[in-house]
């Protein structure tokens, strides 16, 4: 039996390097030897401002996690969106604001329910949690988007928060916030939609900033360690690129040959 899949050797080597960097950084941070500080992410800081504004205006907050679920390749963005949902729920409970959440994939409804309830529990207001504020609007892109648009308009949301994977509905959602004059905080790692969020929202989380939210909000050393390890993997990528560019310019193809393995 051949255990080596040609064409994936370099991928495997990279996977081992990246995992090693993340695990080492994670264990160092968890052990308390060094827990790095995370740089300020304006989009996440703005959530409290958005919740506060909604509370002052006596109007609700609209929240979605995009079109992803936990069964697709975008699940990591959905999970990041749910992390921020928990934080938003905690803030909403603390200030007494109404939080409306619109799941797209029915399988994340129970997760969202639990995440929101935990947020209310952390704020010491479990009794204020209302499961009916999790509103299922069908699992089809444009009906869902139109449902969010209509509900946002009727409820006159004062804060519009969208975190997760988005596609062509992103501007429709931004338009909903524009109609109601809501403060808009949006984030996605879908590179084909980031520009819409940058243009249409007050604060945008760009790409990996969304995934950093879990560590940023929880201040959990394990999660911060994982983020630190991911920084090292990016540094590794930069180093390989620079070495590769210099070698290629010198007509040495050893690195290119290895990457193609």
């Amino acid at each position, binding site marked *: 039996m051949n255990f080596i899949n040609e064409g994936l050797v370099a991928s495997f080597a990279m996977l081992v390097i990246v995992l090693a960097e993340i695990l080492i950084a994670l264990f160092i941070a968890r052990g308390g030897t060094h827990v790095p500080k995370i740089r300020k992410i304006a989009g996440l800081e703005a959530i409290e401002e958005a919740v506060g504004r909604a509370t002052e205006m006596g109007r609700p907050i609209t929240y979605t996690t995009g079109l992803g679920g936990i069964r697709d390749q975008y699940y990591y963005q959905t999970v990041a969106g749910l992390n921020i949902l928990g934080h938003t729920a905690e803030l909403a409970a603390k200030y007494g604001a109404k939080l409306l959440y619109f799941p797209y994939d029915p399988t994340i409804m129970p997760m969202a329910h639990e995440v929101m309830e935990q947020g209310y529990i952390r704020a010491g207001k479990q009794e204020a949690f209302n499961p009916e504020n999790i509103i299922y*609007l069908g*699992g089809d892109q444009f009906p869902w988007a*139109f449902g969010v648009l209509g509900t946002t308009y009727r409820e006159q949301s004062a804060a519009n928060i969208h975190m997760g994977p988005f596609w062509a509905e992103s501007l429709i959602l931004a338009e909903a916030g524009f109609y109601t004059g809501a403060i808009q905080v949006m984030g996605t790692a879908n590179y*084909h939609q980031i520009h819409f969020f940058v243009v249409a929202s007050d604060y945008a989380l760009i790409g990996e900033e969304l995934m950093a939210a879990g560590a940023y909000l929880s201040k959990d050393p394990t999660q911060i360690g994982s983020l630190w390890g991911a920084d090292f993997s990016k540094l590794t*990528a930069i180093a390989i690129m620079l070495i590769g560019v210099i070698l290629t310019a010198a007509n040495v193809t050893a690195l290119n040959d290895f990457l193609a393995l």
Partner: protein
Amino acid sequence: MIPPNIGQLPPELDLFAAIFGVFATIFIYSFLWKENPLSRAVEHLFVGLAAVFTLAFMYDAALSQAVWGTNRLAEGNFIWIIPILLSLMYFFFFSKKYFFLYRYPVSIVAGVMAGMMICGMIQSNFLAQIQATVELPLVGAGVWEGWPPAGLNSIIMIIGIITALTFFFFTWEHTGALGISTRIGRYFLMATFGSAYGGTVMARMSLFIGRLRFLYETSYQDWFWAWYLVPIAAIIVILVALWDRSKG
């Protein structure tokens, strides 16, 4: 199983489909003027249909994947009982006593997906990007000829990729040399977003044009009914909106 021709109306209902399609389109677009009872009605209809469709599609997909498909449960392959039982465990969400059991399928699905995706992610989002950068032409015949020379584009791209990557360092202070790099990276990101925005807006316009073409070209037995229906639908929207306003 859901019949393969589901969603296709019989020819005798073409007229109904044309009328319904035109009215639904106008009622939905009337939201751009103002939210009104007709746009709300179509919105609810749209959402309801999507919910029913998702339910039917998932039920059908689950049965055809695990029960009725080739070499599945119905043909004696009992290993498929495991995913079926795991799926059914989702319903423990509704039980106070056995609530914890619902977490197992969620954890398993999330774990399996993480394991399955990480290899593909390393290949497409990490290795392929490094490979493409390393292979950018910097030397060789014709690389520095013409305007703009391919070599100059390569240098701009290398600087853009590296500085944009440094923008996503989260655990190191963006000060000193790293601060300069992240600032340059931010400019590259903004230029990319601007260019992508222009391109995608055009694509969105084509979606709208597609809907206009539907109105323009919808016919029934060579009669272009949509032409007559659009003004009727528009008048109905105005009347209903005025009625809604008169109610206060």
